[in-house]
């Protein structure tokens, strides 16, 4: 049998599933966004075509733009801090020392814990009355009164939770990259008189470029789409939603499917645009 027919048979099941549950919903979602589909139309029963009305409404929606702003600030902070954090751990684990395997195993723990549970865990730590953070800082004499962290410092809270919960993969990727750098490169550099900083700048960073590119993309995409982690971390504030959460509420709390799909598409476009920007600027390996 010709390879192409065998191949077609082999990829058919996967293609059907991916098309049916990824691509087709994407198109259907766009179709929905051009219609009014909400409680007053009995959802699909009396859905009517309204062109780009939903999209126009999005542009005038103050809370959507607030959530977009929040999501982008969060994403920017997390990309920078998360990358540095992951790089730090990777550099440490790359060295030989006693207990290295324990640390490497520990990296997998936050990855294993479900995002929802991680978010809950941190909301409990940040809790204004009973949280560990307040307790520890108070016992250490660093604060006199308990701070309501999630109310007063919401973004740092979710960034910190993200550093815990979502950097494991980046750490492992960077570690794999570090381990692939031949030690002979460092040796000859030292012989030539390079300092530790110099070795880092001129050997480590350039050799790590492919992994750095992947890590930056992964962190950005995850940050733009975050949902599970922040579910418990909004601290009760009424204007504090990331985009995914805002879209979710509009779609399923208010049952405005036309509006929700329009926003969902916008988020999708933004996500793809960001990936394209990364890919074109960091070119290598694609």
């Amino acid at each position, binding site marked *: 049998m010709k390879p192409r027919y*065998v191949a077609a048979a082999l990829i058919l099941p996967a293609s059907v*599933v991916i098309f049916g549950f990824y691509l087709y919903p994407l198109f259907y979602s766009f179709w929905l966004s051009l219609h009014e589909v909400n409680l007053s139309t009995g959802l699909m029963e009396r859905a009517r075509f309204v062109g780009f009305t939903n999209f126009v409404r999005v542009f005038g929606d103050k809370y959507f733009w607030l959530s977009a702003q929040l999501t982008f600030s969060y994403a920017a902070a997390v990309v920078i801090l998360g990358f540095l954090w992951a790089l730090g751990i990777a550099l*440490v684990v790359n060295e030989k020392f006693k207990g290295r395997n324990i640390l490497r195993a520990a990296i997998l723990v936050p990855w294993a814990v479900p995002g*929802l549970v991680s978010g809950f*865990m941190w909301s409990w730590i940040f809790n204004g009355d009973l949280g560990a953070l307040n307790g520890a800082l*108070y016992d250490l004499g660093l604060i006199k009164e308990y701070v309501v962290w999630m109310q007063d410092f919401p973004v740092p809270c979710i960034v910190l939770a993200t550093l815990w919960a979502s950097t494991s993969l980046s750490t492992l990727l960077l570690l794999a990259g570090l381990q692939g750098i031949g030690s002979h490169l460092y040796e000859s550099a030292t012989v030539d008189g390079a300092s530790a900083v110099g070795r880092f700048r001129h050997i480590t960073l350039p050799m790590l470029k492919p992994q750095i590119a992947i890590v930056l993309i992964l962190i950005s995409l995850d940050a733009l789409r975050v949902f599970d982690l922040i579910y418990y971390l909004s601290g009760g504030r009424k204007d504090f939603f990331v985009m*995914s959460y805002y879209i979710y509420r509009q*779609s399923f709390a208010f049952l405005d499917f036309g509006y929700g799909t329009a926003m*969902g598409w916008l988020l999708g476009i933004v996500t*793809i645009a960001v990936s394209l920007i990364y890919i074109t600027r960091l070119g290598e390996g694609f």
Partner: protein
Amino acid sequence: MRRTVHRVLLYLSAFFFLAFILLPYLWLVRTTISPHIEMLSVPPKWIPQKIDVSMMRSIFFSDFFFSAFRNNLVVSIATMVFVLAVSSLAAFAFARLPFPRKSTLLKSLLFVQMIPEVSIIIPIFLYMNALGLIDTYAGLIFPIAAVQMPYVVWMLKGFYESVPPALEDAARMDGCNDFQVLQKVFLPLVLPGLTACGVFSFMGSWNSFFFPLILSGSQTKMLMPALTEFQAQLGLTVAYREGAIYPVVAAGGVLSSIPVIILALIYQKWIIRGLTRGAVKG
């Protein structure tokens, strides 16, 4: 002297990272096993006076938790089997068979992974509803599987590509057709890859929240959505302050996450190998 400073800094950093990773989770565990009175003491005590697992026990054996746990098991195992079966076929084709538009299809595999779940959930909900599949296992397995497939195919493709062509050529010379080559040569060698992907799939399904939140109902409620209802459903009479959902949800969170933590630690090597396979060239 320089080396000593370096070593000291190294151990300090390692210790700091280890503490940062483990302490928050241990705090959660501590909340779960503290005696009721101490659970919400101000300022919070780190080490409980004595360990009290009664709340954990009553939650674990409650119908609500148990059925959610069972649902998680069913969906995670079924999804894993389905994803592995379907993806290994496609991955083999991508790795070893020439066919037109291969690179376009590969790129589209990467592309679909960028689509946010929230962008496709409404259509999925609508046609699952139309098919009567809301609150059924099938209605959960297929969407969750679809989200996992692109990267599982990608990862398995990498594992297939690492099989030496010489072995494949030998099998073909012995007269095997494509399917037999797949079965006799590739599958045994790709077993580590299948294990890694199996673990990813299982854990991904186990931990999923958003799709189950929308697509499951009272019959098939999975653990993560169930967690958000613990306070309401379990209504335990514990002497804690009103509005304090924490001890119950904390216990639920610990009980939900222990299985996957154990899995991750057992399959460490496979996971790390699978995740980083594509990252380093050569």
